[in-house]
């Protein structure tokens, strides 16, 4: 008979509970190699496709390709996280975890850590492919591209976690993708420069985080060093991610109806 474990603190953030959660999420993914392959390969295939779609105008590929390097991680992480946390909510494991001494912060940080790791792999591969194999012309450092991509992935994780609270089925969860991501995609400056839009839309795009993600990518594309605009963009995207993660934490209730 073992003696009962010493009551570990359930306060703010517990490092070992967070890493245990991250390890568990990654372990779940490891049993699903197809998902991993899809997550990692699709951005590369899309970039490859894009490169030859714009075969005649490498300038266009530079602009769109760099923007997409920021958008891909956001979309994939959004989808994966919203489904994963929805499953956690519907399978009863969330209720069980919250009846245990797990902090909400531990759970969210665990998810962010696990999917952040995947995002690093995904972004590194996509960025490497774009810059070295597909001749994406970046004036700045590819490391900065990677940094923005990582923050975008974090933002996607945060958004996915947040919307999963409002979906009661997987069907609803995937429909949140067009609802949350598509408007940002249209308004982020990928198709038209934002200042050429209707002023009302430009104002809307000013408050959407993806606009800054794309803007940050373009800053790296055109400038050799970190511009103040780039720093602003990075701070905004990172700040939004943290804000939405906080909102996501608020949707995890220990007591439910």
């Amino acid at each position: 008979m073992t003696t009962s474990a010493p009551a570990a603190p359930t306060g703010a953030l517990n490092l070992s509970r967070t890493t245990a959660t991250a390890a568990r999420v990654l372990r779940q993914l490891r049993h699903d190699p197809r998902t991993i392959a899809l997550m990692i390969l699709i951005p590369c295939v899309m970039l490859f496709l894009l490169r030859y779609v714009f075969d005649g105008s490498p300038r266009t590929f530079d602009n769109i390709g760099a923007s997409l390097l920021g958008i891909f991680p956001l979309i994939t992480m959004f989808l994966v996280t919203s489904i994963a946390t929805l499953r956690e909510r519907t399978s009863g494991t969330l209720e069980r975890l919250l009846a245990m001494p797990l902090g909400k912060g531990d759970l969210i940080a665990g998810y962010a850590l696990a999917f952040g790791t995947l995002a690093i792999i995904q972004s590194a591969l996509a960025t490497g492919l774009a810059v070295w194999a597909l001749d994406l012309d970046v004036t700045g450092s590819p490391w900065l591209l990677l940094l923005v991509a990582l923050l975008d992935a974090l933002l996607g994780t945060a958004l996915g976690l947040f919307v999963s609270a409002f979906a009661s089925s997987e069907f609803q969860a995937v429909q949140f993708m067009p609802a949350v991501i598509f408007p940002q995609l249209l308004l982020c400056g990928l198709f038209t420069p934002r200042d050429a839009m209707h002023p009302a839309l430009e104002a809307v795009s000013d408050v959407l985080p993806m606009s800054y993600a794309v803007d940050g990518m373009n800053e790296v594309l055109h400038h050799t060093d970190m511009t103040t605009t780039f720093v602003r963009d990075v701070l905004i995207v990172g700040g939004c991610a943290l804000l939405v993660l906080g909102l996501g934490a608020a949707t995890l209730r220990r007591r439910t109806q």
Partner: protein
Amino acid sequence: MNFKNGPSEPPDSRPAPSGGEPVPPAIDARHLTVVRGPRTVLRALDFTVPRGQITGLLGPSGCGKSTLMRAIVGTQDKVTGTLDVLGRPAGHSSLRTRIGYVTQAPSVYDDLTVRQNLDYFAAILDPGRAATDRRHENVTRAISDVDLTTHADALAGNLSGGQRNRVSLAVALLGTPELLVLDEPTVGLDPVLRRDLWQLFDDIAASRGATLLVSSHVMDEAERCHRLLLMRDGEILADDTPAALRERTHSDTVETAFLHLVDEAAEAARAKETTR
């Protein structure tokens, strides 16, 4: 005491700890009411659950058993009245390591193996590198408690319904909890497994001194409990030992005793209706 194939003798009077201070009951509910949406699911319940015994929570499905259990483990919203669990208000953060809870549907990760599931929950209950050995020991014991040692490396999603239920139960056994709240733990299990699990419950109560609250709608399981709470429509019809219940209603089995009590309650309600 005349338990027919009944449980081992329950510790009748709780031995007070050395200090002589009375130990609060495992669960103490006063005027406990739960509202879900427009429905009042539990109506002003008053009851206590003694420590170190198996208390059966019986009643037809939909009578509020699961809601009561969720209130006790602190995951149910809109609970009014007082509800103390192990001397603390239900849902208190210090209770989270002291209660094991098994929901009706198995709440485990289908895409992890049995052992990986338990490893994770063990790491939440007892975190840190220093506890690695203790965790390993606890996990191995919990797996053998529910008789899944041969399936330890199978994905939970590939197991049968009854096996997944047992994985879920193993998670609740991990931290050596003082109170185990089990919502229909024997549903879908064959008779042999059901007998083995009830032996395990007896053992947990007797040797680990834990309190068990087990819900079921299978009345023959009631005979194996030390005490019974019979519920119907959000109210408690009876709170007694199985023997006393049978005696009071002049019945041979708890099942007929329950039916007797239900009829009695219905008659009382009808009488009230006509006088109005």
